[in-house]
Structures are given as structure tokens and as C-alpha cells.
């Protein structure tokens, strides 16, 4: 069993379609905690001690957010700057997070096709997420491939439903240690794993 912490950041959740739907089942999931950063810290005054305690209580950290400007909303950056302290998360004596796992779960307006050399965005999602990957590396965390929802502006409701099911299955799979390192090391998106439907699991 693994405990999952979702660091959720959406500055205007009331306007969101994808994320609102993705987090809906999360509250009922065992071993998954949703931590809504903008709701807890509307003034970005992050409680460092509390955040570090939360991290220690969990094994897998998922930063779930829209992919604003090829990165995350500001509060995620504020969180990184303040919580991942030198001497705690990295640097001499900074080993608090060793061997935990971290990943991004993001939504972006562009399709998968525009995120490559020939496309409008020129880089792949994996390349653009390098700062997150390197931060993880410096903090002795394993960086998992991202969960990505592409083309959000054109998604119809049934498509969002499919993504939501996929996300939920991934969370259950991670929480139950069903996804091995050998499996995730082969894919560029977590979406690409053959996630076993819930009905067949029991």
C-alpha cells in the first residue's frame, strides 16, 4: 500500500471542466488525500511546517494542475520555493524525501501533436517538465511520467469522463502498488499504461 498526496492547484476551479471532474472521485478513494492549495492558502502564505509534515506522511506526491505557460500555477512554485528547504529536502542532510515518488498530472489546451519538434510548441511535454524532473532528482525523489489531458478546449463531456476514469484507475493502481517501476519506465505518459479497469481488480 502506498499513500498518495495530491497537491492540487487551480486558481479558478469554478471555471474548470477537466480538473473539477478529475478530483470528483478522489475524496472517496482510500489512501489518497487531496490538498487544495489555493483553498488552504488563498494568500499564498504557505505553512511550511505543516506541508513538510504532510510530505512525510505520504509516499507518492502528485502535483495536479493546469499546464500554465509550460509550467504550473504560481502557488506550486511558491510551494516548491518554501517547502523544499535546503538541509531538509536537498543539500547536506537534506534526505527527508528520499525514495518517495513524485509526478505531475496536468491539463493542456494543445493536442499531443503540437507538443513536438514540428508542432507549435516545439518541445514535448516530457521535455517541458524537465525543471520538475530535476527538482525531484535533487530531492532524491523518483520522478514518474506525467498524467496528461490534452486538447482541453475541444474536449466533449464524454471524453472528459474517459480521462476521469483513467485518472481514477491510475490512482487506485498506484495506491495498491500495482504499477511497477519496469512498467512506468517504458511509457512517456501514465495514460499509456494498460490500467486495469476497476471491475476486474477484485
Amino acid at each position: 500500500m502506498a499513500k498518495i498526496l495530491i497537491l492540487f492547484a487551480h486558481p479558478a476551479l469554478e471555471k474548470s471542466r477537466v480538473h473539477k471532474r478529475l478530483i470528483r472521485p478522489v475524496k472517496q478513494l482510500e489512501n489518497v488525500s487531496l490538498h487544495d492549495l489555493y483553498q488552504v492558502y488563498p494568500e499564498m502564505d504557505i505553512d511550511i511546517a505543516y506541508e513538510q509534515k504532510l510530505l512525510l506522511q505520504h509516499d507518492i506526491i502528485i502535483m495536479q494542475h493546469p499546464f500554465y505557460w509550460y509550467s504550473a500555477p504560481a502557488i506550486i512554485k511558491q510551494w516548491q520555493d518554501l517547502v523544499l528547504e535546503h538541509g531538509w529536502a536537498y543539500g547536506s542532510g537534506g534526505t527527508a524525501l528520499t525514495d518517495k515518488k513524485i509526478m505531475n498530472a496536468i491539463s493542456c489546451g494543445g493536442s499531443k501533436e503540437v507538443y513536438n519538434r514540428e508542432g507549435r510548441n516545439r518541445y514535448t511535454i516530457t521535455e517541458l517538465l524537465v525543471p520538475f524532473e530535476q527538482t525531484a532528482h535533487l530531492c532524491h525523489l523518483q520522478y514518474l511520467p506525467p498524467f496528461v489531458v490534452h486538447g482541453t478546449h475541444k474536449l466533449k463531456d464524454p471524453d472528459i469522463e474517459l480521462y476521469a476514469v483513467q485518472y481514477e484507475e491510475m490512482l487506485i493502481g498506484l495506491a495498491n502498488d500495482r504499477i511497477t517501476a519496469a512498467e512506468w519506465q517504458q511509457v512517456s505518459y501514465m495514460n499509456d499504461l494498460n490500467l486495469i479497469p476497476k471491475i476486474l481488480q477484485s
Partner: protein
Amino acid sequence: MNPHSFLFQAMIYLAAAVIMVPLAKKTGLGSVLGYLLAGVLIGPFVLGFIGHEGEDLLHFAEFGVVMMLFIIGLELEPELLWKLRKPIIGLGGLQVLISSLLLAGTGWFFGMNWQSAIALGMILSLSSTAIILQTLTEKGLMKSAAGQSAFSVLLFQDIAVIPMLAILPLLATYAPVVSTGEAPVSTWVSVLPGWGHTLVTLGSVVSIIVGGRYIVKPIFRMVAATRLREVFTATALLLIVGIAVLMTQVGLSPALGTFLAGVVLANSEYRHELESDIEPFKGLLLGLFFLAVGASINFTLILQHPAMIIGLVVMLMIIKGLVLFLLGKIFKLAIGQNMIFAFALSQVGEFAFVLFSFASKEGVLPQDTVDTMVAVVAISMVLTPLLIMLNEKIFLPKLGTKETAEEKEPDAIDESNPVIIAGFGHFGSTIGRFLRAHDVHMTILELDSDRVELLRKMGFKVYYGDPSRYDLLHAAGAGKAKLIIIAIDDPGKRLEMIETIKKHFPDLRMLVRSSNRIDAYDQMNAGMLHVYRESLDTALRLGVDAMKFLGYRAYSAHRSARTFFKLDEYNLKKLASIREEEQYINAARELIEELEDTIKADRQNMNFSDDAGWDEEGLIKDATQGNLHPAKKT
């Protein structure tokens, strides 16, 4: 024990007040009516504890009115007085003039000669400062339009007493009553010619203003430095008594003199101390005054001619009330406020007793008329608190329901709003505006009828009345609302509201305004979770700006303030739990101890985490020690 001994009498008065006043207050009659009833009870016609010395008492206790005007003066800054000049002269002047003429006409119609009729009209045109101000203050109406107008009129009447005293002797038609054993009152000015009189009068007024500014303040400073509280109190009393004596000597109203002194001292640093020193004396003397009025009602006379006396009272109050209502209309008082104004001022005041005895001595009015009229005046005074209450309980709510019925929008029928705001003053209105900007529907409970009318015009759903009453909360939809925001000014009322809501609407979430920490403790001990100290955020915002001006970075100052805020809230909760066991000593001492506890807690807990994530120290150390970790910020 000699029933006429001073102590025995004091015991009777105090006992009557202690029993009757809380009783009257509890049943919603108000303290003034309580005193009056207590007076009737111990008076010569019911229990007979006090006989006719009640009238002497009346003259003594009138000093309470003098003190009251001093305190009113203290609360009135000169600028405010200047702003009120129009209602004082316009509204007050017209009221005295028109009422006097109408009442004189009525007297003349009933067969009095014109001189007596004019004297009677003038005397009856005055209203009771003591009853009106006490009642309106108790109901929190002094700051409303009705309260301000009433105050202006009363102030003019106080001034008008002076020329009246001068005119009355000219209207004498009867042989003056020669009182045996009583020397004619001699004043310093009675030997002076007319121009000298005027000079002395003007001189006294100027000396009060100049003296107040340049002599009294240094004296108070000196006395305050001795740190003997009772001497300070004595000095304050001396000031008032001294001015009263001076004013009487030059033939001016003592009330007016002390009022002036109060205004002069309104800007001084001793204002609050003076106020709290004089307040208990004023309260007791006023109470005594009301007691005396109650005791001096001549029931024998009333029982002899009940129809005539009651008829006179009704006629008098209708005439006065109508004149007031009409003037209120001309001076653009809203209907609800105008009703309060007219009802409040429709009685005859305590000055009438003085003027009546003066008039009968000077032979202006026959003694039997004076006796009858004194009874009429006393009854009209007793009726006033009752009328104000009646107006509040019956007429004003009707006014309210009528207006809602007219303005109700079709889709608003039976739709209850999710939010109720109690109190729409400067605090509540900010919340209300903010919520309204987000289209949050709300119901407002408000005690100021002026504001009620305005808000209704703006399309708000407003209920008028005491928000701590169950029926009002129920009518406002407290059973269905999600939240109630308690934003009224009065901390006591807020606690009352909390208790009512806890009892009858346990599911309604309460967000409560609190004035300060002490208030917040009380609310927390009453089980409140959402307590908002009204000055905390603003004070911290100012603190942040102060730090910025001192050269701190804006963001650091802001984060610091947030940390301070959170820790302060935490300390508040901690101290609230300790405090329950504490004994309450006295308010001032409590505040000091409170401050001490707070500052101690600040020292212990306010370890401002210096945001180590933004700190380079560890990184620099690592780097200089040749540690090869690639650091994020290098």
C-alpha cells in the same frame, strides 16, 4: 427610626429604584418608566413613604438634568454643534413658537385672559430633556435623524427658558403670592441696569469658554497628576456646581452653562475620565428626579376631576405631537423617524415645574390652574416612555410591513435568502456591499428606521427591530438561511443574539463581529467559532505600511503580518480557555492584564519563521565547504 431621617429616605428611594427599574427594564418598559412608577408607588398617594417633600426633592434632583447636559456637551464637539445650527434654530425655534401660540390660543378659547394664556402656552411648549434623552439613549436612537432633531429642539428649548423667565413677570395679572419666610432671590445682576445685565451675561458665557480652554484644562492636568481619583471626581463636580451657581447668579440656565462647559471640554484629553466620573452622579440624580416626578403626582386632584385632567393631557399631547409631526415633515424627516420624533417630544418638561412655581409667585397664573397643570405635566411625562414603546411595537412595524408588501417583487415571495445580516452600519454595510457585488441574496435586520427606509428603496429585504428577538429572526427566515452575520455595534446585544440563535436555530452558522479581544473571549466562551475582531486586520495593514516606510520589503512585511495574524488568532484561542477560570476584577485592570498576557504570548510564540526556503545561508555554507551538490540557486 425617624421616617424622615436622611438615611431612611435614601433607603426608600434606593429600594424603590432597585426593585422597580430592573423589573420595568425586563418587561421592556425602559428605566425611565420604572423610576416614575417607583415614585408613584412610594409617593403620598400609594404607600406614603414620602410626603410632600417630594417637590423639594424635585428641585434638588433637577441638578441631574444639569449634569446630563454637561455630559451631552462632552460628547458634542463644537463643529458638530455648528453643523446642527439649522435644526436648532429652525426646527427648535418654530416648535417653541407654534406650540406656544396654539396652546395659548387653546387656553384663551377656554376663557383664560390673554396674558395667562400666553404664559401657559410658553411653559407647555417645552419638552422634557431628561426623559427624552434617557429614553432615546437607552434605545440607541440618539444618533438617528429623530434623535438629532429631538436633541436640537431640546437645546433650543433650554435656551428659550431664559427669555421666558424675563417675559413672565410682564404678564402678571394677579396679585403676586408673597411667600413668608422666603427672601426674594437676589442675584448679582438684580442691582445692575439693563446694559450691565447684558454685559455680565455675555461675560459669563465668554468666561466659561475661555476659562474652559485655558484654566480648567491645566487644573485638571494638575489634579490628575496627584493620582487621587476622588479628588479628580471632586474637581469635576466642583466645576459643574460652580458653573451652575455662576449661571444662576447672572440669571442664566445652569443647564445651558454646563452644556457650554461640556462642549468646550469635548476636545480635551480628560473627556472620557470626566464622563465616567460624572456619569454615576448624573444617573442617580436623574433617577431621583424621575422618582420625584412620580411621587409628586397629585392623585387627589386627579380623582376629583378625572375627565378634565385626562382630557387636558390628551389635548395637550395631540397639539404638541401634531405640531412636531408637521415640522418634522417640513424638515424632511422620513416617516418612521418623524413618528419617533413627534412621540418623543409630545410631553411637557421638567422646566415647567420651575416656571409654574415662578409664574404663580409672580401672579401670572392662578394657583388652582398651576396645581392642575402640574398634574397634567407629570402625567404627560409618565405617558412618554409608554408612547415611545407603543410607537415602536405597534406603529413602526406596521409601517414596515406595509412598505414591504408594496415593494415585494413577484419572484421574491416566500423565497428565503441564504444570508442574514444583523446591523447594516459601517461594518455590516461593507460586508453587505461585498456580498451583493457577488449577487448573494441577503436579508437585513436593522434598528435604525432611517436606514431601513433607505435600504428598502434600494431593493434590499429589510426587517426593522431588535435582532435578538426570536420572532424577528424567525420572520427574517433564520430557520432556512445558511449563515447569519452578526454585525451590530452593541457587544451585549450580540451576545443576546448568539444565545437566542443557539436556542432556537441551532443549525444556523454564525459569523460574529467582535470589538476587541475581551469581546472575542466572551463570544468564544459562548461557543462561537467564527469571531472577527473589527480592528485587527486594519491595524495590521497599517503595521505593514509602517514597516514599508521603514524600508522593509513589501512582500516580507506582508508575510510577517500574515504570520502575526495567524499566531494572534491562535493565542486568542489559547488565552480564551485560560480566562474562563479568571475572576473579573474591573474593566480597566482587566484590559491592562490582558495586554500584558498578549505581549507575553507574542514573545513566546511569535518566532517568525524566516522562510528558510528563501535563505541562502545553508547553500553558501555547502558551497564553501566544497560540497558538490548542484544547488538550485547558484
